[in-house]
């Protein structure tokens, strides 16, 4: 990010109301060195407090209970085991996601990262253990109820309804979370960030290019910012230049109070963004801590880096 960003083909400027504060200093030449701000050990709800001009953050953030102890993490996994049919993919996974943080979930293929994401969003039910959202136990709750509690999950791969139009994709999401009255405004917000989507509002989403589909799935979650956003391989199949912008978008929404769980193959990018890192291997947590304490362990824990 040391050089000025050229206009990206296809990827329109993100959230316009992003505070221009330079959160991330110019990237040092060695990418391994974590450059994220010091890990916030304390949740940072105050960062979320100032409502942005469009006023769209207020609803979800206001829903966060202040809680008696400020240190309660937004999401807690407590000895969670899970699997598919006979297969067990996760073994006693425990970690916590502090409020307002970005947590990178790293590990080799098949380590169970996607399963963790699915467990957090309710797509896969744990066979053992418990999950908490703040103080509330959410173990066993179906995905659609968790979405209403503010956990959004942008799954791996194509995550748009290919047979619906762009606008229908957006409306489906907005109507369920904001009701019929709030949906048009959210639609407008989504279009104002991604004008490309407005151009293609009546196009069938399956005919969009890969980058546009990613745009659409981001627009779906962003126009009504959740408390917790889980993104799984958001940059898969995107050109490097667009990957950068995706990460900037994530950084911006984090600064607006949205807690993030990020699964990424671009480990360096994820480390730049994340405050904390959880590394999985073969279904178990092998590292859980602040990014800047990771040091050169990362090279040992994630082969090939």
């Amino acid at each position, binding site marked *: 990010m040391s050089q000025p960003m050229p206009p*990206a083909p*296809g990827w329109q400027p993100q959230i316009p109301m992003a505070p221009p504060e330079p959160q991330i200093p110019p990237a040092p030449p060695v990418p391994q060195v974590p450059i994220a701000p010091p890990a916030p050990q304390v949740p940072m709800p105050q960062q979320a407090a100032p409502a942005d001009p469009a006023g769209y953050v207020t609803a979800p953030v206001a829903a966060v209970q202040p809680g008696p102890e400020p240190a309660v993490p937004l999401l807690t996994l407590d000895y969670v085991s899970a699997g598919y049919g006979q297969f067990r993919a996760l073994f006693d996974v425990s970690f916590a996601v502090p409020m307002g943080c970005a947590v990178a979930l790293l590990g080799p293929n098949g380590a169970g990262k996607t399963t963790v994401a699915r467990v957090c969003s309710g797509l896969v039910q744990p066979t053992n253990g418990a999950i908490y959202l703040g103080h509330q136990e959410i173990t066993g709750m179906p995905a659609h109820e968790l979405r209403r509690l503010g956990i959004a999950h942008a799954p791996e791969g194509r995550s748009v309804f290919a047979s619906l139009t762009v606008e229908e994709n957006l409306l489906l999401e907005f109507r369920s979370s904001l009701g019929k009255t709030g949906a048009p405004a959210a639609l407008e917000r989504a279009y104002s960030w991604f004008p490309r989507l407005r151009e293609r509002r009546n196009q069938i989403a399956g*005919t969009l290019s890969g980058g*546009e589909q990613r745009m659409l799935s981001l627009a779906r979650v962003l126009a009504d910012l959740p408390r917790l956003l889980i993104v799984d391989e958001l940059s898969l*199949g995107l*050109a*490097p*230049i667009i990957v950068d912008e995706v990460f900037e978008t994530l950084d911006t929404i984090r600064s607006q109070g949205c807690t993030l769980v990020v699964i990424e*193959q671009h480990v360096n990018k994820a480390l730049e963004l994340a405050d904390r890192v959880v590394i999985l291997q073969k279904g178990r947590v092998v590292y859980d801590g602040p990014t800047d304490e990771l040091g050169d362990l990362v090279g040992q824990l994630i082969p*090939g880096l």
Partner: protein
Amino acid sequence: MPLLAAESISKHFGGIAALVGVDLNVEPGEFVGLVGPNGAGKTTLFNCLLGILKPNRGRVFFRGRDLSRMPMHARARLGLGRTFQRLEVFSGMTVRDHFLVADRSRRKKGGLFGDLVGQGTPTRREDARAEAVGELLGLTELLDVPVDSLSLGHARLVELGRAVLTEPKLLMLDEPSSGLDRVETMEMARVLQSVQAERGTAILLVEHDLEMVSLVTSRLYVLEFGEMLATGPTPQVLAHPVVRRAYVGDVA
């Protein structure tokens, strides 16, 4: 004569031009890369080259023959191998069976009569050929494992091995590193290099992973907005300022 020759391909969907007068050649035994931003038309070009889409203008020749009206299995018989970005493995079959089927398909075996007189069981030679490819790809230990239980990286290698066993003249690979982690990507790169070196197969690689591209390809095409932005030896192309601005961004 180039092995694969595409001459001024144009393709539009409705009013949107996806490709505008694109040329592309692959010489025998060459390792060529094709990169470009999302929506630049890579997939469209790839499908035009394979004859899956019919270009509005221009033609595609493979070994001097027009591909566009040829069904996929006929193209394979002509020596055009390919892998898929979304896996197309034969679920339920072992790795060895994948290789056996490909091998038999190439040798045009498959008659009902042969099966009835008991020629269906794999011979020692067929096994040896399967094992040789298994070794080339580093899949020796996994030969008898059902493909469904392989990791994505291994499954991609199986697809590659399956294509290699049909002894193609040209392999067309659609984002083989997609979904692979670093280790797997580098392993894929190594295997591709040895396939090209040991079997003399030409390879056309569509890929986002620039590290892999710069490692394996000797020549590179860069596509942007449906037009060919640059072509030439890989290092020079990747270093070119225009390419860097359009595609690479700040990542070297």
